[in-house]
């Protein structure tokens, strides 16, 4: 009963927030509401038992996407043009599509029905047999990393490609920065936001450690490479936000991080190739070791590492390129302002 109440409340709140997003003109407010929207979705996922998904959505929807949105808005301008294209026509299209879809839902099995078609085909095998076949308590990890490993490989490649795309679109050729200037900036910044900096310094090792825990605990509880990668990256974001991008660039070498992104995928692919060389099919871990269950564990461990490396480094690449672009734009703007002042 309480579950149903929470479910309905969260969904209603989601609709409310979405309508507010549609009506809001100030893009900063839109981005902030989008953050709230992400948090709400993640709470809903927990209420629906999807703990692994909630884990990912928490880190991605509320953290990284809001942050990226903010960086972009500072570059592209804060307010939206009030003119809209024919809202009535759009409303008409949307209403017709929506009512057709709702008509379609009338034939669906009711929410939570145990005899719905989705629960009768492949799911019972995962739930009943995976303990013997894979030997991992967390069924989501078992399906993700073993039964559907090839699918996951594709997803990781998509993430990697998106990272390359952002790199191609936004990376700027960078002069070597003067270390002395960076020192000076750091000293001058140390006075401001002292409390934030100290608390952050205490938190960052903890976040990194927690990311590793999530990475290795994926077999027994919610967690795994995707979540760990995102959390690891967010610790680096926090550092870059408070200590400046140039300092963060010196800590995290850009060419190494690009290498790590590629090595992650390579590791994943190599596990597949090795299992083929051992006489199995692609990504069939049973042949990796004399004991099939041990082979499965080894394979899952390795590919989760690959996923974690790639996701973390792609997220870092994306954020650093966005933030670097923003900093360059701001610098150019400042110089223009100073020139204008001089002209006056």
């Amino acid at each position: 009963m309480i579950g149903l109440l929470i479910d309905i409340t969260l969904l209603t709140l989601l609709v409310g927030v979405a309508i507010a997003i549609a009506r809001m003109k100030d893009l900063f407010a839109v981005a902030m509401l989008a953050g709230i929207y992400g948090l709400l979705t993640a709470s809903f996922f927990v209420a629906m038992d999807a703990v692994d998904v909630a884990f990912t959505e928490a880190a991605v929807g509320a953290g990284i996407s809001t942050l990226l949105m903010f960086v972009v808005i500072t570059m592209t301008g804060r307010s939206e043009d009030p003119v809209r294209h024919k809202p009535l026509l759009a409303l008409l299209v949307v209403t017709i599509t929506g009512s057709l879809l709702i008509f379609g839902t009338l034939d669906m099995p009711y929410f939570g029905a145990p005899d719905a078609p989705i629960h009768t085909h492949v799911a019972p095998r995962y739930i009943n047999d995976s303990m013997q076949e894979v030997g991992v308590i967390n069924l989501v990890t078992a399906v993700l990393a073993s039964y559907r490993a090839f699918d996951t490989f594709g997803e990781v490649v998509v993430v990697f490609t998106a990272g390359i795309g952002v790199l191609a679109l936004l990376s700027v050729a960078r002069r070597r920065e003067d270390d002395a200037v960076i020192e000076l900036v750091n000293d001058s910044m140390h006075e401001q936001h002292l409390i934030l900096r100290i608390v952050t310094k205490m938190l960052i090792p903890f976040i990194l450690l927690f990311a590793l825990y999530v990475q290795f605990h994926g077999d027994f509880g919610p967690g795994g490479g995707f979540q760990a990668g995102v959390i690891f990256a967010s610790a680096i974001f926090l550092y870059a936000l408070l200590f400046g991008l140039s300092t963060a660039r010196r800590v995290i070498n850009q060419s190494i991080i690009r290498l790590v992104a590629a090595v992650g995928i390579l590791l994943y692919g190599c596990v597949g190739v090795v299992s083929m060389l051992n006489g199995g099919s692609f990504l069939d871990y049973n042949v990796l070791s004399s004991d099939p269950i041990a082979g499965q564990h080894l394979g899952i461990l390795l590919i989760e590492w690959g996923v974690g490396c790639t996701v973390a480094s792609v997220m870092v690449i994306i954020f650093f390129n966005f933030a670097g672009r923003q900093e360059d734009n701001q610098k150019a703007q400042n110089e223009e302002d100073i020139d204008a002042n001089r002209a006056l």
Partner: protein
Amino acid sequence: MTLDINTIVEILSGFCLLIGSFLCISGGVGILRFPDFYTRMHAVGVTDTLAAGMILVGLMLQNPDALVVIKLLMILVMTLFINPTASHALAKAAFHNGLMPVLDDTEILNSKERNKTTDNDLEPK
């Protein structure tokens, strides 16, 4: 009537949860009803941390499993660190950017128009 230890723990836990819930709701009412940013911040900043602490302690008393208690403790410690820091940074940023507190009664009456103008005034650059 004898009270065994379990009943006492149960009652204590219920009491903590009750206080936590009360603080939650009072903070919620505060953020909605108070007239300007700083008073709202006061309402939230004060109640939020204590409410979180109370609810988490209440939950800790409910469960004897060591791992769960440690995780709750971790959440508690992090809330104690993070919440006041975030409030501090937020209030400082607001004050440095010239958002003034409402000091006068008449201003509270006019606060609707006043607040509307501030949103545009504070636009960066």
